[in-house]
């Protein structure tokens, strides 16, 4: 079924299922450091549904932003106007992110490897990249310092790769124990929400394991979309489909953001992934 048909029938598209899966993982009252794009959508969906007291922190310095519409950029006036406090960029990184005050850091990715490390810098060789991506932004320190990290990425072998071209942000490094060795204070990624399912790190090895499939997706599809030999949890779960309320709120939110329209051009290979951590 086409995306348009799914929307028309009130059923969730894969991207919507990804947003809902990520949103559900947030608990009310948590403090969440969000980037623009998919993470901001998911966090605002959580706030609009089961987590009305979720605290959104944006790296532009907006603490406790309560946007009525989805911001197009991380420095939107809407974020400042609705924030409990607006602080400088040095303060947001040094006083709020670095000390580990943030419960959940939300990251997108152009590439993710089996230990949930992330690349948002280049595809190909660093000095002669085939695609130059935006770069690090706040991600390395979000990945290092938040108590937990959630990752959102479309599931494809181009994104879920055996080896990153560049490690912009650390998930579990070379595996279990590496975060401790590197002195990274937070617990690292606990969840990777994709449009096919949810991956979580194995508590022993820190390798990402498929623990949940969205309705209608098969294990083979998920494995085919992963660039390494994806392990599957014994107690694999099937995601609850989005509720009517979740879908309604998600679509209402997305309608508040101006459609990207024709200006966005064709679907260039990494266009989606670039947008996933815009700013």
């Amino acid at each position, binding site marked *: 079924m086409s995306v348009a048909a799914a929307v028309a029938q009130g059923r969730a598209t894969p991207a919507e299922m990804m947003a809902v899966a990520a949103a559900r993982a947030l608990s009310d009252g948590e403090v969440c450091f969000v980037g623009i794009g998919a993470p901001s959508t998911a966090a605002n969906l959580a706030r609009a549904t089961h987590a009305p007291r979720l605290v959104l922190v944006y790296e532009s310095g907006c603490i406790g932003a309560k946007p009525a519409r989805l911001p197009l950029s991380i*420095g939107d*006036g809407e974020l400042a106007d609705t924030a409990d406090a*607006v602080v400088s960029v*040095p303060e947001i*990184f040094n006083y709020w992110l670095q000390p580990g005050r943030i419960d959940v850091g939300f990251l997108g990715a152009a590439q993710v490897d089996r230990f949930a490390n992330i690349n948002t810098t280049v595809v190909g060789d660093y000095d002669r990249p085939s695609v*130059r991506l935006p*770069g690090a932004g706040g991600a390395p320190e979000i990945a290092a310092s938040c108590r937990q990290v959630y990752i959102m990425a479309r599931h494809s072998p181009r994104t879920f790769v055996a080896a990153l071209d560049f490690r912009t942000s650390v998930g579990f490094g070379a595996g279990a124990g590496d975060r401790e060795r590197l002195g990274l204070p937070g617990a690292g990624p606990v969840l990777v929400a994709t449009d096919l399912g949810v991956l979580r790190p194995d508590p022993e090895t820190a390798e990402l394991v498929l623990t949940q499939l969205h309705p209608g997706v098969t294990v083979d599809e998920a494995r085919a979309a992963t660039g390494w030999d994806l392990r599957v949890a014994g107690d694999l779960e099937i995601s609850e489909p989005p509720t009517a309320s979740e879908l309604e709120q998600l679509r209402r939110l997305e309608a508040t953001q*101006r459609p990207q329209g024709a200006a966005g051009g064709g679907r260039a290979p990494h*266009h989606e992934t670039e947008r996933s951590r815009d700013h």
Partner: protein
Amino acid sequence: MAELLNLHDAVARLVRDGDTVAMEGFTHLIPHAAGHEIIRQGRRDLTLVRLTPDVLYDQMIGMDCARKLVFSWGGNPGVGSLHRFRDAVENGWPGPLEIEEHSHAGLTNRYVAGASGLPFAVLRGYAGTSLAEPGRTANLAWVDCPFTGERLAAVAALRPDVAVIHAQQADRDGAVQLWGIAGVQKEAVLAARRSLVTVEEIVDRLEPRPGSVVLPAWALTAVAVVPGGARPSYAAGYYDRDNDFYQAWEPVSRDRDRFLEWMQAHVLEAVPA
């Protein structure tokens, strides 16, 4: 003490070929008009510094003002790639572009050290990333805490030759007030040897406002009145972000010829503010 100049003279006096130039603004208050004046005056070999190079730096790179870019996130916010930046890095057009890239936290602290008169700043960052690979990232090193022995990242102070920012208001003496998202502008100005602030307007008195940053006149080099000087970004209290422009930039900037035509019509032939 800040001198009140027009934009042409301010750029002519403060910005020189080969300078390290920081034009800051975190989505908000991006000094587009000053950047366009730098393009019009044909500055070359600049080292451009900014946390979030976006459309303005895309334009300056495409117009061959820059030899080097120091940055931490280079994209068109909410839209996608910076095609002129990518073309320079991927294909060396219009010339090779050296890059020094950091995380936001790292580059921010380079400014903080500069503003603080310290040679370096310390942060928890970079550890385990490819940015931390030996020889990869200039101005990044490691220090051991003398109390705990912990190893931490150190970034070298950034001291731009000139910082350029846009603010809402100045008073007649050249003190400046900005409000809304303030990014790293105060640090950029205080870290720089010279500074230019373009403002929406001159007022008799800077009325205290919630969340405002005030820079005294004696901490600035020059102030220029440029109404709308942040467009297509926004100036809280004056005008909104022109999101359509950022969308429209995508196809314009994808194509070298279309880009050059646009710059010719909208910047080179534009009447300076």
